[in-house]
Protein backbone atom coordinates (compact mmCIF):
# COMPACT_ATOMS: atom_id res chain seq x y z
CA UNK A 1 0.00 0.00 0.00
CA UNK A 2 0.93 3.65 -0.12
CA UNK A 3 2.65 4.83 3.04
CA UNK A 4 2.23 8.40 4.21
CA UNK A 5 3.32 10.41 7.20
CA UNK A 6 1.44 13.25 8.88
CA UNK A 7 2.78 16.68 8.11
CA UNK A 8 3.82 18.75 11.12
CA UNK A 9 0.88 20.73 12.48
CA UNK A 10 2.81 24.01 12.17
CA UNK A 11 3.17 23.51 8.44
CA UNK A 12 -0.56 22.83 7.99
CA UNK A 13 -1.52 25.84 10.13
CA UNK A 14 0.76 28.08 8.07
CA UNK A 15 -0.91 26.90 4.86
CA UNK A 16 -4.53 27.30 6.03
CA UNK A 17 -4.34 30.36 8.24
CA UNK A 18 -5.81 32.66 5.60
CA UNK A 19 -8.88 30.53 4.91
CA UNK A 20 -12.07 30.65 6.95
CA UNK A 21 -13.97 27.52 6.01
CA UNK A 22 -11.80 24.47 5.88
CA UNK A 23 -12.61 20.84 5.19
CA UNK A 24 -10.33 18.21 6.70
CA UNK A 25 -10.72 15.44 4.18
CA UNK A 26 -9.69 11.84 4.89
CA UNK A 27 -9.39 8.68 2.86
CA UNK A 28 -10.40 5.21 3.98
CA UNK A 29 -7.70 3.32 2.13
CA UNK A 30 -3.93 3.18 2.54
CA UNK A 31 -3.61 6.28 4.71
CA UNK A 32 -6.11 4.81 7.15
CA UNK A 33 -4.05 1.65 7.50
CA UNK A 34 -0.84 3.58 8.04
CA UNK A 35 -2.64 5.86 10.49
CA UNK A 36 -1.85 9.08 8.72
CA UNK A 37 -5.06 10.19 7.06
CA UNK A 38 -8.10 8.10 8.00
CA UNK A 39 -11.24 9.11 9.89
CA UNK A 40 -9.44 9.15 13.24
CA UNK A 41 -6.68 11.39 11.99
CA UNK A 42 -9.26 13.68 10.41
CA UNK A 43 -11.02 14.06 13.76
CA UNK A 44 -7.82 14.74 15.63
CA UNK A 45 -6.48 17.27 13.14
CA UNK A 46 -9.85 19.05 12.90
CA UNK A 47 -10.12 19.27 16.69
CA UNK A 48 -6.54 20.53 16.98
CA UNK A 49 -7.10 23.17 14.32
CA UNK A 50 -10.31 24.33 15.99
CA UNK A 51 -8.48 24.73 19.27
CA UNK A 52 -5.56 26.46 17.62
CA UNK A 53 -7.74 29.07 15.98
CA UNK A 54 -9.87 29.47 19.12
CA UNK A 55 -6.75 30.38 21.08
CA UNK A 56 -5.14 32.41 18.30
CA UNK A 57 -7.94 34.68 17.25
CA UNK A 58 -8.94 33.52 13.80
CA UNK A 59 -12.59 32.59 13.50
CA UNK A 60 -12.73 29.46 11.40
CA UNK A 61 -15.18 26.79 10.55
CA UNK A 62 -13.55 23.39 10.36
CA UNK A 63 -15.48 20.56 8.71
CA UNK A 64 -14.70 16.86 8.63
CA UNK A 65 -15.30 14.21 6.01
CA UNK A 66 -13.73 10.90 5.13
CA UNK A 67 -14.52 9.04 1.91
CA UNK A 68 -13.85 5.52 0.78
CA UNK A 69 -11.15 6.55 -1.67
CA UNK A 70 -9.93 9.90 -2.91
CA UNK A 71 -8.47 8.28 -6.01
CA UNK A 72 -11.86 7.39 -7.47
CA UNK A 73 -14.39 9.66 -9.18
CA UNK A 74 -17.49 8.18 -7.60
CA UNK A 75 -16.37 8.65 -3.99
CA UNK A 76 -15.02 12.12 -4.64
CA UNK A 77 -18.45 13.12 -5.92
CA UNK A 78 -19.74 12.77 -2.36
CA UNK A 79 -18.43 16.20 -1.44
CA UNK A 80 -19.70 18.01 -4.55
CA UNK A 81 -22.94 19.13 -2.97
CA UNK A 82 -21.05 20.85 -0.14
CA UNK A 83 -18.01 22.03 -2.04
CA UNK A 84 -19.10 25.67 -2.06
CA UNK A 85 -19.06 25.67 1.73
CA UNK A 86 -15.30 25.31 1.78
CA UNK A 87 -12.57 27.83 1.03
CA UNK A 88 -9.93 25.17 1.30
CA UNK A 89 -9.55 21.44 1.71
CA UNK A 90 -6.80 19.79 3.71
CA UNK A 91 -6.57 16.37 2.11
CA UNK A 92 -5.05 13.65 4.25
CA UNK A 93 -4.91 11.28 1.30
CA UNK A 94 -1.69 10.36 -0.50
CA UNK A 95 -0.44 12.61 -3.28
CA UNK A 96 -2.76 10.79 -5.66
CA UNK A 97 -5.85 11.64 -3.65
CA UNK A 98 -4.81 15.25 -3.15
CA UNK A 99 -4.32 15.76 -6.87
CA UNK A 100 -7.44 13.91 -7.90
CA UNK A 101 -9.48 16.06 -5.55
CA UNK A 102 -7.78 19.19 -6.88
CA UNK A 103 -8.52 18.19 -10.46
CA UNK A 104 -12.17 17.65 -9.65
CA UNK A 105 -12.73 20.83 -7.67
CA UNK A 106 -10.85 23.37 -9.68
CA UNK A 107 -11.65 26.48 -7.67
CA UNK A 108 -11.13 25.10 -4.17
CA UNK A 109 -7.69 25.40 -2.58
CA UNK A 110 -6.12 22.03 -1.83
CA UNK A 111 -3.50 21.54 0.87
CA UNK A 112 -1.80 18.22 1.55
CA UNK A 113 -1.95 17.16 5.18
CA UNK A 114 0.48 14.27 4.80
CA UNK A 115 3.77 13.56 3.09
CA UNK A 116 3.48 10.56 0.82
CA UNK A 117 6.50 8.41 1.59
CA UNK A 118 6.60 5.17 -0.36
CA UNK A 119 4.98 1.92 -1.42
CA UNK A 120 5.48 -0.24 1.58
CA UNK A 121 4.31 -2.85 4.00
CA UNK A 122 2.98 -2.83 7.52
CA UNK A 123 6.07 -4.48 8.94
CA UNK A 124 5.20 -4.10 12.58
CA UNK A 125 2.97 -1.98 14.81
CA UNK A 126 4.09 1.57 14.06
CA UNK A 127 6.65 0.48 11.48
CA UNK A 128 6.10 0.83 7.74
CA UNK A 129 8.86 0.02 5.31
CA UNK A 130 9.42 0.46 1.61
CA UNK A 131 9.18 -2.49 -0.73
CA UNK A 132 8.58 -1.12 -4.21
CA UNK A 133 9.41 1.94 -6.31
CA UNK A 134 7.07 1.16 -9.16
CA UNK A 135 9.93 1.04 -11.69
CA UNK A 136 7.53 -0.48 -14.18
CA UNK A 137 9.55 -3.58 -15.06
CA UNK A 138 9.80 -5.99 -12.19
CA UNK A 139 13.06 -7.87 -11.63
CA UNK A 140 11.97 -9.82 -8.53
CA UNK A 141 12.02 -13.16 -10.36
CA UNK A 142 15.77 -12.76 -10.75
CA UNK A 143 16.60 -11.43 -7.31
CA UNK A 144 15.07 -13.99 -5.00
CA UNK A 145 11.93 -11.92 -4.50
CA UNK A 146 13.83 -9.02 -2.92
CA UNK A 147 13.90 -5.73 -4.75
CA UNK A 148 17.29 -4.09 -5.32
CA UNK A 149 15.63 -1.04 -6.87
CA UNK A 150 13.65 -0.04 -3.80
CA UNK A 151 15.73 -1.57 -1.05
CA UNK A 152 19.30 -0.76 -2.10
CA UNK A 153 20.26 2.87 -1.49
CA UNK A 154 22.11 2.81 -4.83
CA UNK A 155 19.59 0.58 -6.62
CA UNK A 156 22.53 -1.59 -7.65
CA UNK A 157 21.33 -4.36 -9.94
CA UNK A 158 24.56 -6.33 -9.64
CA UNK A 159 25.25 -5.90 -6.00
CA UNK A 160 26.23 -5.57 -3.33
CA UNK A 161 28.40 -2.49 -3.46
CA UNK A 162 31.50 -2.31 -1.28
CA UNK A 163 29.57 -0.76 1.59
CA UNK A 164 27.74 -3.89 2.74
CA UNK A 165 28.84 -4.75 6.28
CA UNK A 166 27.43 -7.43 8.56
CA UNK A 167 24.30 -7.50 6.48
CA UNK A 168 23.71 -3.78 6.80
CA UNK A 169 23.82 -0.91 4.33
CA UNK A 170 26.58 1.71 4.42
CA UNK A 171 24.03 4.47 4.92
CA UNK A 172 22.84 3.15 8.29
CA UNK A 173 23.20 0.21 10.63
CA UNK A 174 19.39 0.17 10.77
CA UNK A 175 19.01 -0.53 7.08
CA UNK A 176 19.39 -4.06 5.76
CA UNK A 177 21.67 -4.53 2.78
CA UNK A 178 19.26 -5.60 0.03
CA UNK A 179 21.95 -7.71 -1.58
CA UNK A 180 22.66 -9.54 1.65
CA UNK A 181 18.95 -10.38 1.74
CA UNK A 182 19.03 -11.43 -1.91
CA UNK A 183 22.04 -13.67 -1.38
CA UNK A 184 20.47 -15.19 1.74
CA UNK A 185 17.24 -15.89 -0.11
CA UNK A 186 18.99 -17.32 -3.19
CA UNK A 187 20.87 -19.60 -0.83
CA UNK A 188 17.65 -20.70 0.88
CA UNK A 189 16.20 -21.44 -2.56
CA UNK A 190 19.35 -23.35 -3.49
CA UNK A 191 19.84 -20.93 -6.39
CA UNK A 192 23.04 -19.17 -5.34
CA UNK A 193 24.53 -20.00 -8.75
CA UNK A 194 22.05 -17.54 -10.24
CA UNK A 195 23.95 -14.79 -8.47
CA UNK A 196 26.58 -14.86 -11.19
CA UNK A 197 24.13 -14.05 -13.95
CA UNK A 198 24.81 -10.42 -14.82
CA UNK A 199 21.79 -8.15 -14.78
CA UNK A 200 21.89 -6.16 -18.02
CA UNK A 201 21.62 -2.39 -18.22
CA UNK A 202 18.07 -1.64 -17.14
CA UNK A 203 15.41 0.01 -19.25
CA UNK A 204 14.40 2.87 -16.97
CA UNK A 205 11.92 4.27 -19.46
CA UNK A 206 9.16 2.48 -17.55
CA UNK A 207 10.36 4.24 -14.39
CA UNK A 208 9.59 7.88 -13.60
CA UNK A 209 12.38 8.71 -16.04
CA UNK A 210 10.02 7.97 -18.91
CA UNK A 211 7.53 10.63 -17.83
CA UNK A 212 4.09 10.21 -16.24
CA UNK A 213 2.94 6.65 -16.63
CA UNK A 214 -0.40 5.35 -17.80
CA UNK A 215 -1.97 1.93 -17.97
CA UNK A 216 -4.55 1.55 -20.71
CA UNK A 217 -6.65 -1.59 -20.88
CA UNK A 218 -8.91 -1.91 -23.88
CA UNK A 219 -10.38 -5.14 -22.51
CA UNK A 220 -11.87 -3.47 -19.46
CA UNK A 221 -12.67 -0.14 -21.07
CA UNK A 222 -16.39 -0.30 -21.97
Amino acid at each position, binding site marked *: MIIAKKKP*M*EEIIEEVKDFDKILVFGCNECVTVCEAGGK*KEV*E*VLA*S*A*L*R*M*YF*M*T*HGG*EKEIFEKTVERQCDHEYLEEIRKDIDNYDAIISLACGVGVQFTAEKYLTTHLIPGVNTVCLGANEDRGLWTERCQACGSCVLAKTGGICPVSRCAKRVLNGPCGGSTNGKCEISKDVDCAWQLIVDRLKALDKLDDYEKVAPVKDWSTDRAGGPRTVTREDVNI
Partner: protein
Amino acid sequence: MRLKCPTSFRIVRVPCTGKVDAIHMLRAFEKGADGVFVVGCMEGDCHYNQGNFRARKRVEQVSEILEKVGVGGDRIKMFNLSSGEGPLFAEYSIEMDTKIRELGPSPIKKGKKVKNANAA
Protein backbone atom coordinates in the same frame (compact mmCIF):
# COMPACT_ATOMS: atom_id res chain seq x y z
CA MET B 1 -13.88 4.72 53.23
CA ARG B 2 -15.08 8.27 52.93
CA LEU B 3 -12.40 10.08 51.02
CA LYS B 4 -12.37 13.73 50.14
CA CYS B 5 -12.02 14.51 46.47
CA PRO B 6 -12.24 17.83 44.68
CA THR B 7 -15.64 18.44 43.12
CA SER B 8 -14.14 20.12 40.10
CA PHE B 9 -14.03 17.09 37.84
CA ARG B 10 -16.43 14.77 36.18
CA ILE B 11 -15.67 11.07 35.91
CA VAL B 12 -16.18 9.39 32.54
CA ARG B 13 -16.13 5.67 33.06
CA VAL B 14 -14.63 3.39 30.44
CA PRO B 15 -14.14 -0.38 30.53
CA CYS B 16 -10.40 0.08 29.98
CA THR B 17 -8.17 3.10 29.34
CA GLY B 18 -7.38 1.41 26.02
CA LYS B 19 -10.86 2.54 25.02
CA VAL B 20 -9.86 6.20 25.36
CA ASP B 21 -8.95 7.60 21.99
CA ALA B 22 -7.04 10.80 21.30
CA ILE B 23 -10.18 12.41 19.97
CA HIS B 24 -12.08 11.81 23.25
CA MET B 25 -9.47 13.76 25.18
CA LEU B 26 -9.25 16.48 22.55
CA ARG B 27 -13.05 16.89 22.51
CA ALA B 28 -13.05 17.44 26.27
CA PHE B 29 -10.61 20.32 25.80
CA GLU B 30 -12.47 21.64 22.80
CA LYS B 31 -15.62 21.79 24.91
CA GLY B 32 -13.84 23.77 27.55
CA ALA B 33 -12.30 21.36 30.03
CA ASP B 34 -9.31 22.92 31.84
CA GLY B 35 -7.62 19.59 32.35
CA VAL B 36 -8.02 15.88 31.77
CA PHE B 37 -6.51 13.02 33.65
CA VAL B 38 -6.67 9.45 32.57
CA VAL B 39 -6.50 6.86 35.31
CA GLY B 40 -5.62 3.34 34.26
CA CYS B 41 -4.67 0.08 35.90
CA MET B 42 -1.12 -0.59 36.96
CA GLU B 43 1.17 -1.12 34.01
CA GLY B 44 1.48 -4.83 33.38
CA ASP B 45 -1.90 -5.53 34.99
CA CYS B 46 -4.14 -4.67 32.05
CA HIS B 47 -6.91 -7.21 31.47
CA TYR B 48 -6.51 -6.51 27.78
CA ASN B 49 -2.73 -6.76 28.07
CA GLN B 50 -1.85 -3.43 26.49
CA GLY B 51 -4.83 -1.14 27.05
CA ASN B 52 -3.11 1.16 29.51
CA PHE B 53 0.05 1.29 27.41
CA ARG B 54 -2.00 2.42 24.46
CA ALA B 55 -3.63 5.02 26.68
CA ARG B 56 -0.24 6.33 27.80
CA LYS B 57 0.92 6.75 24.20
CA ARG B 58 -2.29 8.55 23.30
CA VAL B 59 -2.04 10.84 26.30
CA GLU B 60 1.48 11.74 25.19
CA GLN B 61 0.22 12.36 21.68
CA VAL B 62 -2.60 14.61 22.93
CA SER B 63 -0.22 16.44 25.22
CA GLU B 64 1.97 17.28 22.23
CA ILE B 65 -1.01 18.49 20.22
CA LEU B 66 -2.25 20.65 23.10
CA GLU B 67 1.19 22.20 23.39
CA LYS B 68 1.25 23.00 19.69
CA VAL B 69 -2.23 24.53 19.54
CA GLY B 70 -1.58 26.77 22.52
CA VAL B 71 -3.71 25.04 25.15
CA GLY B 72 -0.72 23.61 26.98
CA GLY B 73 0.57 20.06 27.20
CA ASP B 74 0.60 20.09 31.02
CA ARG B 75 -3.16 20.03 31.19
CA ILE B 76 -3.31 16.31 30.54
CA LYS B 77 -1.73 13.51 32.54
CA MET B 78 -1.95 9.76 32.91
CA PHE B 79 -1.97 8.01 36.29
CA ASN B 80 -1.88 4.32 37.13
CA LEU B 81 -3.28 2.61 40.20
CA SER B 82 -4.97 -0.64 41.13
CA SER B 83 -8.72 -0.85 41.71
CA GLY B 84 -8.23 -1.17 45.48
CA GLU B 85 -6.37 2.11 45.81
CA GLY B 86 -9.14 4.57 46.56
CA PRO B 87 -6.93 6.84 48.68
CA LEU B 88 -4.41 7.07 45.87
CA PHE B 89 -7.18 8.03 43.46
CA ALA B 90 -8.19 10.81 45.84
CA GLU B 91 -4.57 11.91 46.09
CA TYR B 92 -4.15 12.02 42.31
CA SER B 93 -7.36 13.96 41.86
CA ILE B 94 -6.18 16.55 44.40
CA GLU B 95 -2.80 16.74 42.66
CA MET B 96 -4.47 17.33 39.30
CA ASP B 97 -6.96 19.83 40.74
CA THR B 98 -4.11 21.83 42.32
CA LYS B 99 -2.06 21.72 39.18
CA ILE B 100 -4.91 22.91 36.94
CA ARG B 101 -5.77 25.72 39.34
CA GLU B 102 -2.16 26.85 39.13
CA LEU B 103 -2.37 26.83 35.34
CA GLY B 104 -5.64 28.74 35.42
CA PRO B 105 -8.55 28.46 33.00
CA SER B 106 -7.98 26.95 29.57
CA PRO B 107 -7.37 29.51 26.82
CA ILE B 108 -10.14 27.77 24.90
CA LYS B 109 -12.68 29.24 27.29
CA LYS B 110 -11.38 32.74 26.66
CA GLY B 111 -11.52 32.10 22.94
CA LYS B 112 -15.11 30.94 23.25
CA LYS B 113 -16.11 33.96 25.29
CA VAL B 114 -14.66 36.32 22.69
CA LYS B 115 -16.50 34.43 20.01
CA ASN B 116 -19.82 34.57 21.88
CA ALA B 117 -19.35 38.27 22.61
CA ASN B 118 -18.72 38.91 18.92
CA ALA B 119 -21.81 36.91 18.01
CA ALA B 120 -23.92 38.93 20.47
